[in-house]
């Protein structure tokens, strides 16, 4: 499965720089290309009011405000590596009037949380920009902060099922910046490798842009 994934083109420093740069216009891309997956991810996550939720790579906060709406009596943490993204997210989140959240700047490889702190970990469009060799270390870090029985919900650009979807992989081969460095990946095999189970995977296409929504569960006592 791993050999089918194209090589990542950006280093961590380049990713931070590029996402700082596109922060002001990111919402346009987010609404046009990602709103359907965001909605589906929230449905699949099935967040219950009162839970502790972490969103990794919250971007400009489009998903974060929806999590907050579903969880007024719980707690939501959001992290991102780009200060400009977090600042933009904060402006949006402030308007909800809720105070049961915190935002941090951090590297997803080194999350600043205790073990088993969260009921749900959500992440959208992160693995698809990173090198394949980083997938397992990052997913293990997500697993570490997730409680036993907790849910992980990932959304990524994935391999296209129809010719229209495959155009995007072609664009990536020719000009990766046009897709902000994202290429098609499949997260479930990696989650399975580190002990997640009870998977649900859906393929969603919006304007032909192919994404997958994957949910897995951390087994109790699986570290």
């Amino acid at each position, binding site marked *: 499965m791993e050999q089918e994934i194209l090589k990542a083109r950006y280093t961590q420093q380049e990713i931070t720089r590029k996402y700082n740069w596109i922060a002001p216009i990111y919402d346009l891309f987010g609404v046009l290309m990602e709103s359907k997956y965001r909605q589906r991810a929230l449905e699949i996550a099935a967040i219950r009011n009162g839970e502790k939720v972490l969103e990794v790579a919250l971007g400009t906060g489009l998903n974060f405000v929806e999590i907050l709406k579903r969880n007024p009596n719980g707690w939501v943490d959001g992290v991102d590596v780009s200060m400009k993204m977090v600042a933009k997210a904060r402006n949006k989140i402030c308007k909800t009037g809720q105070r049961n959240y*915190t*935002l941090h700047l951090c590297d997803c490889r*080194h*999350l600043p*949380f205790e073990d088993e702190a969260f009921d749900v970990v959500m992440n959208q469009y992160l693995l698809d920009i990173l090198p394949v060799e980083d997938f397992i270390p990052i997913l293990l870090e997500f697993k570490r902060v997730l409680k036993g029985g907790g849910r992980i919900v990932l959304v990524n650009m994935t391999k296209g099922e129809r010719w229209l979807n495959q155009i995007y992989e072609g664009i990536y081969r020719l000009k990766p910046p046009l897709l902000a460095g994202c290429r098609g990946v499949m997260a479930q095999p990696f989650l399975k490798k580190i002990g997640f189970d009870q998977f649900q995977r859906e393929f969603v296409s919006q304007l032909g842009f192919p994404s997958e929504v994957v949910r897995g569960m951390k087994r109790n006592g699986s570290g």
Partner: protein
Amino acid sequence: MPISKELLEILACPKCKGDIFLNRRGDGLICKACHLLYPIKEDIPVMLIDEALPYQGEEG
């Protein structure tokens, strides 16, 4: 928004995963084990190991 009690309960040093605590001025989070201070900029904790400052032990 100031650092809340709920956050401090689950927050850990990104390097050693040990306990951290707010410094006296409220503008940084200290890990005594790693001797690092993670700055809080515009109410946002910057929990990046590479951007942490050396902690000399005069606070807390």
